[in-house]
């Protein structure tokens, strides 16, 4: 039996209320809000967050590969999935691949993962999808596109949703596209996207799948249909395919927005959260054709639900409303005055390679002589030096690696720094103490400055610190534990 063995999702903390677009640009008001990635997030960090949720209770060393699906990869040349795999602390003898350039990238990766497990090439495969698509200001896309991520672990043991069958159609036509140098999504006339793309291809795939699996619409508990830019079309296609309103998985139009290649998978997570054993879930994702999958929820699902996956439910209500101009600033769409001070130090790739475990894996050391654990950030001022000699017993070079990324922590002390050159002032440096020992110095992200306190609980998250000459500089930040 091959299928989904675990799931996770991620929705950014920040949301923009759609009415702001109307206030700024006119047109007509569109209700609801959309989720937007923070200035320190991108498809790589959000994929990490969803994958981290998915691997809750799973040893990352026992996962045989990672696929990252996105149309918003931070790197065009350089694999993005390796960054996520490193931050997740996966082995190096694994398969990694990026699935890009298509709104179907998420389900394409899912198909490839299923096939790899079925073929016996891997025992299991982690599939992540994350999106940060940009619509140009004053356009429909700006209001409709949301940011988010999802992750599934595909395997053949302890399956929570068995794959009964899949069906794909491929179609050259696309109403939405980005050329190599485009920053914003371009679109042909709306009715072409909707009538000749979405409304034509999805029914083909759904009908093809149901025929192949010998099921009728009434046999399906939930239809998970990736949402188009115009949400009205979502229900129309579902109903047209023979489904009742109660069978349609909510598309989170009012709360998240449509998340491109990640949308179907995110909605699938939401469907699983509400599912019970025996339920049949049909997942269909549009994008240059469409992919459709039929899953059946197993008895394992009940066990899974008892475990701590945050999923869509866990992240959707944990939020802050962001002013529109802050969003524009974060996306670099409004030039703002630079802080008047010398430039930051240049990034060194060889230095990163040397301290990759500390930087991307948040690894420290455990002294094998005295047993103490310690983390030392491998950069900065005042004696920030690699751990060669133990801080506690001064024994030289007698350590094993010790991972801090998955440890709970609390704030030892903090400041709210209004002098710092940061994108989301005030700078919020914190020293955190880890459960089980060790301390570290980090920035805090996704926080309400007024709520930052000594002893507040935090979790470690993988974020982007800065960008220098084409190099994305990822590291870890502390985040107040999201409900």
């Amino acid at each position, binding site marked *: 039996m091959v299928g989904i063995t675990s799931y996770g999702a991620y929705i950014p903390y920040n949301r923009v209320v759609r009415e702001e677009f109307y206030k700024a640009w006119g047109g007509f008001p569109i209700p609801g809000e959309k989720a937007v990635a923070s200035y320190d997030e991108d498809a790589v960090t959000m994929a990490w967050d969803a994958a981290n949720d998915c691997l809750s209770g799973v040893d990352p060393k026992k996962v045989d590969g990672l696929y990252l699906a996105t149309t918003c990869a931070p790197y065009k040349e350089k694999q993005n999935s390796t960054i996520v795999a490193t931050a997740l602390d996966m082995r190096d003898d694994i398969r990694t691949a990026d699935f890009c350039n298509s709104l179907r990238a998420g389900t394409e990766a899912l198909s490839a993962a299923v096939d790899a497990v079925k073929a016996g090439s891997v025992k299991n495969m982690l599939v992540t999808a994350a999106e940060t698509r940009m619509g140009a200001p004053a356009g429909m896309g700006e209001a409709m596109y949301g940011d988010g991520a999802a992750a599934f672990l595909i395997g053949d043991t302890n399956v929570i949703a068995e794959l009964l069958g899949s069906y794909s159609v491929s179609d050259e036509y696309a109403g939405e596209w980005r050329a190599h140098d485009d920053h914003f999504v371009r679109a042909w006339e709306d009715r072409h996207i909707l009538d000749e793309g979405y409304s034509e291809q999805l029914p083909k795939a759904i009908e093809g799948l149901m025929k192949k699996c010998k099921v009728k619409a009434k046999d399906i508990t939930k239809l998970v249909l990736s949402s188009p830019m115009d949400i009205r079309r979502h229900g129309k296609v579902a109903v047209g395919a023979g489904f009742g309103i109660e069978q349609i998985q909510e598309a989170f139009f009012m709360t998240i927005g449509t998340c491109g290649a990640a949308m179907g998978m995110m909605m699938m997570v939401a469907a699983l959260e509400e599912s019970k054993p025996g339920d049949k879930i049909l997942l269909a994702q549009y994008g240059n054709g469409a992919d459709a999958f039929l899953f059946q929820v197993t008895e394992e699902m009940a066990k899974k639900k008892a475990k701590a996956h945050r999923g869509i439910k866990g992240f959707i209500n944990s939020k802050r409303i962001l002013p529109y101009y802050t969003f524009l600033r974060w996306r670099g769409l409004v030039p703002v005055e630079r802080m008047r001070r010398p430039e930051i130090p240049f990034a060194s790739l060889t230095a990163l390679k040397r301290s990759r475990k500390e930087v991307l894996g948040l690894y420290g050391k455990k002294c094998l002589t005295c047993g103490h654990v310690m983390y030392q950030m491998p950069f900065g001022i005042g004696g920030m030096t690699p751990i060669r000699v133990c801080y506690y017993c001064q024994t030289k070079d007698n350590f094993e690696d010790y991972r801090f990324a998955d440890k709970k922590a609390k704030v*030892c002390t903090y400041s709210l720094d209004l002098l710092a050159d940061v994108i989301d002032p005030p700078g919020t440096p914190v020293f955190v103490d880890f459960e089980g020992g060790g301390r570290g110095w980090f920035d805090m992200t996704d926080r309400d400055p007024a709520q930052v306190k000594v002893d507040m609980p935090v979790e470690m998250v993988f974020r982007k610190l800065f960008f220098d000459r084409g190099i994305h*500089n990822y*590291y870890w930040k502390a985040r107040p534990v999201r409900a």
Partner: protein
Amino acid sequence: MPESIKDKVAIIGMGCTKFGELWDKSVSDLMVDAAYEAYEDAGIEPKDIDAAWVGNWQEVSGMAGLGLAGLRLQYKPITRVENMCATGTDALRNASYAVACGACDIALAVGAEKLKDMGYAGLISVSPGGTTATGGISTTAPAIFAMLATRYFSRYNIPPDDGKRMLARLSVKSHHNGNLNPKAHFHKEITVEQAMNAPIIAWPLGLFDCCGVSDGSAAAIVCRAADAKKFRQDPVFIKSIRMCVGPAEGPVKPEYDFTHVEETYRAGLAAYAEAGVKNPRKEISMAEVHDCFSITEAVIMEDLQFSPRGKVKEDIESGFFDLDGGLPVQPDGGLKCFGHPVGATGLRMVYEMYLQLQGKAGPRQLKNINLGLTHNQGAMPPACTIAVCIVGR
């Protein structure tokens, strides 16, 4: 047991420029001004200098000892000293050891810094040789020291307003003293209300909790104690110079409480032992400490055992550290009013002790003084270099 330096070395001349935004002075100008003032004070010629140590943090003066080339010393050994913000005291320490061991008869220590050409009102972070692609936790110096305050307030259950009032009182005191000092950068009396209501720089520190950023230079000329009276009748003797460099464990070990600075405590212990001080609160007559931020000064008072742990608030509020208090601290106005030209600060502190001991401190002159202490801190509370110097007659 190593020998003590107590009473082996004398300071026979000192110089100190005015500190401030000295747009018409380069770092070399500042060094020349401070050194020549010291020569004149000691009654010596430049040719009498056998060796020199130049304290400078940033590399604006050129590398190595050549930073002091502007003095045109003729083919003498010159060493550049860099120990972050404790650089000035370390330059004096090196010069003192050199004359004490007899390697030279007269040595010069000069500290100088030109910060105001940066176009930024703060210290830049220095990360040599590029970073590991992550260097960029955008924490400024005020925030790093503010983290001492947040934790101190939390540990001793001091409500933020009370804590800010306590810190404000220190800044009011230093501004009062600095206003009496023509060489200080800032001449301005302030009130507790002004300090408390000033714009926040890094919570809970406001504008008046932070020292200035200034240009300046100070210099000292030292010789062996036995020779001192050949130069002047009122030399000042070094009773101790002790430095303590921590193993940078505060950022790593949760055992560090963020309400004290271990290096200051230990440097104090070592200096008191060397100088023969048993009860610092009673025996130290005056002190110039590293008040880069108001909270730093508060915590130093406890680490140097001037105040009991957790009790500095009482001493601050009773005026114990005021010019007319039991143990005047920052009689010259401190970093608060001089700013902190990194390489110069340690020597500027000693300069005030030197003036006070010679009775030349003008309206700031303290009475019945015996021992003066300087405390100079390099880097941040959880990981730093501390130099403590005790001088007397």
